[in-house]
């Protein structure tokens, strides 16, 4: 041990900043989780605040607002898996059939772009183009179909649809990269053999391309399901408004509102802990499923 420490002293020094970061900003906050079982008082600090048992969890499970928020979180994630997840697969299949290299690169570069733009900007753009009085979408609807302005962003019917479509807008292009790479790895001889056997494009895609990317689809799908409890704060926060709280409020925005804005630290910690534990269980379960399917696990 002594020898290796002396030999590798530089390596340990290299490791020091990164490791301190994980200890201080990832592990130390875990200690703060005990707040979920206490009544936090600022003057007493975390340790000296009185114990509260499961009081906050009891309140959580009897809170109607919380069930709405949990439902929204799960529903938006469900839409995500059903509608957003397949989009890059379809796009990658189409891109894979393009023969002109420069054209393919051009289309890819345009499709990747929204991935690099923050939700503040994307949300601002969505609100602008969908505005009932000045938005271009309503102008087109009025002009082409003679429809009265639709209040997309303040309608509890339209909001989840807009949210889901905007997710496709941001992620579908960038999501094709891994699928395209998997498709590039498929043996061209398979396609040739299929052509000789008289298989058309559709059958080639069904029998060769899709099976060729099955592993990638499986892993990404299961990773996605592991995030069922999590809807990103930024996307919701930048698209929601008071009129659609009932369908748009999710755990991350709820924790921010009651925790940081409302200073109910203990209760908000309990909500966060609940989310974290369910998330952990989901990821562990999912990893087992990946392994059972004969694919490499995540670790």
């Amino acid at each position: 041990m002594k020898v290796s420490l002396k030999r590798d002293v530089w390596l340990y020094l290299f490791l020091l900043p990164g490791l301190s970061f994980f200890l201080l900003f990832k592990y130390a906050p875990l200690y703060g989780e005990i707040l979920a079982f206490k009544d936090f008082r600022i003057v007493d600090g975390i340790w000296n605040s009185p114990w509260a048992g499961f009081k906050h969890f009891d309140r959580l499970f009897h809170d109607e607002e919380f069930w709405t928020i949990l439902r929204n979180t799960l529903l938006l994630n469900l839409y995500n898996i059903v509608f957003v997840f397949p989009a890059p697969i379809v796009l990658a299949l189409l891109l894979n059939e393009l023969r002109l290299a420069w054209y393919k690169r051009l289309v890819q570069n345009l499709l990747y772009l929204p991935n690099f733009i923050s939700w503040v900007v994307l949300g601002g753009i969505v609100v602008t183009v969908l505005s009932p009085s000045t938005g271009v979408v309503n102008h087109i609807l009025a002009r082409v179909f003679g429809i009265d302005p639709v209040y997309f962003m303040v309608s509890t019917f339209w909001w989840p649809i807009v949210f889901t479509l905007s997710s496709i807008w941001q992620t579908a292009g960038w999501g094709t990269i891994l699928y395209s790479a998997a498709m590039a790895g498929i043996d061209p001889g398979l396609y040739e053999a299929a052509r000789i056997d008289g298989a058309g494009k559709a059958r080639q895609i069904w029998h060769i391309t899709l099976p060729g990317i099955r592993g990638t689809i499986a892993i990404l799908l299961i990773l996605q399901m592991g995030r069922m409890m999590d809807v990103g704060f930024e996307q919701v926060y930048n698209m929601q408004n008071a009129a659609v709280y009932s369908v748009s409020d999710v755990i991350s925005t709820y924790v921010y509102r009651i925790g940081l804005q409302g200073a109910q630290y203990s209760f908000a910690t309990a909500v966060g802990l609940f989310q974290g534990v369910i998330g952990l269980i989901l990821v562990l379960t999912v990893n087992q499923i990946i392994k059972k399917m004969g694919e490499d696990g995540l670790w």
Partner: protein
Amino acid sequence: MVKRSLAAANALLLAVFAFITLFPFLNVLAYSFSSSRAIAAGEVFVWPVEFNVAAFGKLIDDGQLFVAMKNTVIITVVGTLLQMAATTLAAYALSKKRLKGRKAFLGMILFTMLFGGGLIPLFLLLRNLQILDSFWAIWLPSLVSAYNLFVMKSFFETLPAELEESATIDGAGDPVIFWNIVVPLSKSILAAISLFYAVGMWNVYSQAVYFLNDSELMPLLVRLYQMIQQTSETLLDSSEASLIQPESIKAAAIVIAIAPILCVYPFLQKYFVKGVLLGSVKG
């Protein structure tokens, strides 16, 4: 013949998708340069109508957006440097199989990807450290991305061991090997990861909302959010007059906020793709 037209239809379909993806950006760009009258009349689609730069003039006069942009530049430059230094050094150390405790360190870092302490404990920690309301509250809690660390570590592991062995025989220590051999061989991955970090810092938003109160420290996107909210307060009532002018100002603010990304994007795009593919090889 059928095959030909199928290929053409496919190319056309993708052109349509690309256009739909791009259209909202073009529309907002056109709004920012159009007259209030043309916007209200619904004449603006992808090209400015009655071209003018009044909205940009207003924003430049106001000046707040540029204070915010200065903050974002500082956050991005310093933040990316700190992140790269911490990530690269740790990844190099962890790529050495001879390092005692390596497995434990890796397991410890992996766990942080699966379970986090949540927002409130982190907030209280930052308050105890007295770094709320400073850029440190942005930089420190996101110093190392475990994912980027693993990508970089796997890349370092693929470098040929012989190069380092011969350097060791020549008496070079780890700092020399790292700086003179590993860094020059890893330019592409270092470029890719720096870009991911830089984009993350440029787009920093939620951490600023959580941890910064001082309006002097607001990054660009928080300021932009405030401007968008101010103008969309009026979203619920459809009285035209109050909406017209704010729309083009809002559009101009959005254009200013994304212009830097759009300018560098075409040149750096290939590094991003490389970064994703390196990461997928298995972290």
